[in-house]
């Protein structure tokens, strides 16, 4: 508990030392900030009301009798009815007033949420069981590219994402940036992100979507526009042909084994669209929709036995010899 | 505890009609449940109709004749239905008997017409959402037709036995009450299935 005390303090609005990169209390986006101040206002007002009720209960407890008093007609006569009606009436009026004020505050806070809905989106986010497909739009086909489970956005620029689903309902939620929005098959939803601080923020699917709902993470990287542009340019490029011999062998294995049926690596003959685009896999921080940090060991473990890492995942195990496995791993991790 | 008698109820009758009887209220309760079911099914139809850019989803509206004949039959059946209710309240056994036979006959004819309606529907329930919802509406109402006719058959049989007396007249009255509900529930469904505008 002691170790986690900082997290509790975050809740109270203080700074924290722990890694709360998926927390509504650690805001880095305009929408998250608006919601957080509204949440604090509600908490204080409602907390005071709750406290008042508890004080009334405390008075009741103070007035307790040891044994029941015997009944008389005065007890049934409801004396003091007028005064009590006034008390209840004014409390009721106060409740109505509080509720009206809170409703008004909420309506003010929701304006920006609905305002930009009609705007066109530059990024399409498509939910799959259990990973995120990210498609960046562009003026020409060569400007467009696809990646997965890692969304980069420039700091200080509002970005609208369109939210779609390829199978069941998912929900996009990066608490540090904004509230959530569902991805529903056949429905066009969208959400606006405006990051105010550079950093990496974690998100996770928030609508139960089946076996691996718990492992459907997403990383949002907010960066200054120069580095964002650089990242974008790098992502647009096709995968560089491998120069080292083991990586070349890995590329050979990748396209000749079932891997290529599901995954795309632009610049090669691998063009499957069932699984995530791996063109620049090596540039991402995590693997398996944020299950493990990406490194040679975790990637090899994933390829060798995806179900050992993420039971029930839709990727079938592919039989590879030890040298094939290390070659494919080397190839993929080199796809920066 | 000591007691003091303030009223005597021994002169009250052992059964009653309409709102004085438990059964009438029970029937009303089940009508409320089923009526809510009908209202929700109608709501589903409207939701699907307005949620799609075109309606009825590539089909034309079904041929209305079987439904129209059924509607006329059901509306006409209200006349003997009112009569059987009155006869029951007057404990007129002979009249109740022939009216029940007539109403059961009408009910069986109505079920037969419902099957003609199903037969004439062009979209199947699994063609698309339009097919699904019109089959659902007609099916939901069909279960009520069949339930009431089943009830009427048993009650008619009962009225021809030695049990056809006393409280059974109240049962006849309640059965007539339920038939009003079955007819009333049909009218909005008839409109939706056969006359709802093409969007």
């Amino acid at each position, binding site marked *: 508990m002691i170790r986690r005390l900082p997290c509790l303090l975050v809740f109270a609005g203080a700074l924290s030392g722990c890694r709360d990169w998926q927390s509504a209390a650690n805001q880095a986006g305009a929408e998250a900030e608006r919601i957080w101040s509204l949440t604090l206002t509600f908490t204080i007002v409602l907390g005071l009301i709750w406290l008042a009720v*508890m004080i009334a209960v405390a008075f009741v407890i103070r*007035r307790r009798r040891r044994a029941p008093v015997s009944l008389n007609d005065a007890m*049934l006569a409801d004396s003091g009815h007028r005064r009590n009606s006034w008390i209840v009436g004014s409390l009721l009026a106060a409740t109505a007033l509080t509720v009206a004020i809170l409703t008004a505050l909420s309506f003010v806070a929701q304006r920006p949420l609905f305002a930009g809905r009609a705007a066109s989106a530059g990024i399409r986010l498509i939910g799959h069981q259990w990973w995120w497909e990210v498609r960046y739009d562009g003026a020409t086909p060569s400007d467009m590219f696809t990646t997965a489970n890692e969304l980069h956005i420039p700091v200080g620029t509002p970005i609208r994402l369109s939210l779609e689903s390829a199978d069941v309902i998912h929900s996009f939620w990066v608490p540090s940036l904004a509230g959530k929005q569902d991805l529903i098959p056949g429905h066009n939803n969208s959400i606006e992100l405006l990051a105010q601080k550079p950093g990496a923020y974690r998100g996770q699917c928030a609508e139960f979507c089946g076996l691996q709902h718990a492992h459907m993470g997403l990383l949002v990287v907010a960066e200054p526009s120069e580095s964002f542009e650089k990242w974008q340019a790098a992502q647009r490029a096709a995968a560089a042909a491998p120069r080292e011999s083991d990586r070349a062998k890995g590329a050979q294995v990748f396209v000749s084994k079932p891997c290529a049926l599901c995954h795309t690596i632009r610049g090669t003959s691998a063009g499957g669209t069932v699984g995530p685009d791996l063109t620049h896999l090596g540039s991402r921080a995590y693997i398996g929709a944020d299950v493990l940090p990406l490194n040679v060991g975790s990637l090899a473990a994933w390829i060798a036995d995806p179900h050992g890492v993420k039971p029930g995942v839709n990727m079938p195990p592919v039989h590879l010899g030890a040298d094939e496995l290390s070659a494919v791993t080397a190839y993929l991790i080199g796809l920066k | 505890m000591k007691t*003091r008698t303030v009223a005597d*109820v021994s002169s009250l009758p*052992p059964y009653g009609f309409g709102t004085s009887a438990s059964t009438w209220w029970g029937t009303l309760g089940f009508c*409320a449940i089923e009526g809510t079911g009908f209202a929700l099914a109608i709501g589903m139809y409207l939701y699907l109709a307005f949620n799609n850019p075109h309606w009825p989803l590539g089909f034309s509206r079904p041929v209305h004749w079987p439904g129209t004949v059924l509607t006329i039959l059901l509306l006409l059946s209200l006349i003997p239905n009112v009569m059987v209710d009155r006869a029951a309240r007057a404990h007129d056994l002979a009249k109740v008997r022939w009216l029940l036979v007539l109403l059961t006959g009408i009910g069986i004819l109505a079920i037969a017409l419902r099957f003609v309606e199903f037969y004439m529907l062009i979209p199947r329930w699994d063609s698309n959402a339009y097919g699904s919802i019109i089959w659902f509406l007609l099916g939901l109402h069909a279960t009520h037709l069949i339930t009431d006719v089943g009830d009427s058959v048993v009650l008619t049989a009962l009225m021809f036995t030695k049990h056809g007396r006393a409280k059974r007249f109240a049962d006849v009255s309640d059965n007539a009450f339920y038939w009003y509900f079955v007819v009333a529930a049909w009218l909005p469904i008839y409109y939706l299935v056969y006359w709802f505008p093409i969007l």
Partner: protein
Amino acid sequence: MPRAAAAMPRPANQRDTGLDDAELRERLAYTWGRRPGIIGWLTTVDHKEIGKRYLATAFVFLALGGLLAAIIRLQLARPEAHVVGPDLYNQIFTVHGANMMFLFAVPVMQAFSMYLVPLMVGTRNIAFGKVGAFSYWIYLAGGVFLWVSFVLDIGPDVGWFAYVPLSGPQYGIGKRADVWAQMITFTEVSSMAVAVETIVTVFKHRAPGMTLTQIPLFVWAMLVTAFMIIFAMPAVMVASTSLILDRLIGTHFFNQAEGGSAILFQHLFWFFGHPEVYIIFIPATGMVSAIIETFSRRPVFGHVAVIISLVGTGMLAFGLWVHHMFATGLPELGASFFTIMSMLIAIPSGLQIFCWLVTLLTGTPVIRTPLLFVFGFFFIFVLGGMTGVMVASIPIDLQVHDTYFVVAHFHYVLIGGAVFPLIGATYYWFPKITGRMMSERLGVWNFWLAFIGFNVAFFPMHILGILGMPRRVYTYQTDVGWDGLNLLSSAGAFILAASFALFFFNMLRSARVGPLAGPNPWGAGTLEWLAASPPPSHNFDHIPFVTHATPLWAERESLPIVTGISVNTREILITTLADARPEIREASPDSSIWPLIAAIATTIAFIASIFSPWAAVWGSALIGVTLVGWFWPKSMKEDEE
């Protein structure tokens, strides 16, 4: 009043007029008693017998659902734990939710209603006693069906609201989602039947003189609940039936590709699902009213205001359902309307709470275990109500929706708002049902364990939700900072579990060795305390004549009664709806085996129809045959009654 009926000849009947007390009691007990042996047990239509069965069954389901909760807390106590895998975990939380909502919370409230409402309105049985027996068997069958499926690894795994397309034909493979849908059918048929019985009992079977405003608040609460069941539960039946049709015969209600809509399912489900919360909560408010009235030794202040608030809450509850769907991308105007409605419901709820507090403050409160649980209710439920106001706000909801904040919120509302009053009510009415008092000393322990355990288990979940933990995750990673609070929550859950163990122990022990209670151990004012404890099969020797909302407090010298009711046939007094003037003496059904037979036929039809659509056809015919047996008169006497 039909003149013809009044003119009919009446059978020579022995009436209760002028019989001495001993003979009267003996004759009534003979007429209303059940047959001996197992046959008597299977055929009884006595609301008390069936109510007790309902209660016992609901408590068994509570214990089973609690076991699942314990497994959930074990799994979540540490990150990346392997107590259970994802497949089993998904079944566990689904069955936990479905079990608690459909097999415990609603039925346990209806069980109290079934047992108490006829006693509180001063009659001898619930209306349509055979329907009550039938509804119990159907409920039992539905519960056994769910749990057997779970044990056979075909328990539903799609969450208790089973959203499509996850539960639809394409993604919900196997029979798991069908089990969910058909379990709904079982429990809803049973609930709706009891609701109709309750309404007719309250409307027409009240003791003479009991006007609408003199109806005890608990009975009012059950009446409002019954109406809500009638208008809410058809929605979930329509939803689950269409889901089965989509899965079984290929309809397209929820298939976007063929013009259906996944959102339509959510509307249908929540049109039921939100009122459902109030279907559980409103009976509990009735319990709170009854307990507060008795232990503050005065009638509840604002009896009529509380009735208005119950009715108002019941109606507003139908205008809130969309606040479960704020994240689906609704238009602003529509969503805002539901914010206003959700906020508005704070007003009737507040009204009730203020009336209770004034009652306690102007009465002479005596604190016993039932009242302790009511204090726990104030603490927990009011807090849950406050977070309820928070989730009514669209921006706040978009942040906390589907997180552990919401898990905390609805456990505060449901456990604090319904289970605490329910445990208090059990302590309160246990002496009436069994004739013995529960241990007060264990009761105090029970309360403190439950109160501390509950808050330690569920308060941290608010913070976990804010820290980003979504609900329905079978595990979480080490790098998100949720491990400490989860461990704390799990520790609290086991204290809470201990409190329930103590509660069950106290019940079982007190039923055998508790001190004898006598008819009115708490000195309460409503009619159920007029009957002996436990009440005889005929409830009351004489039908009381009511002049006050707390008749036993108002008529302390001698009780006014009416006479002229048959003692050798089961006869009950039917009164007018508004002012309860005696209207007819109606027959109340005798014991019958047909409810059980009909329930077996219905069970066969329901279960078979998840495998073949034709089962709906032959199954209906089967049920029809049993209903003919049910309604066909067994004697000439029955025609007259």
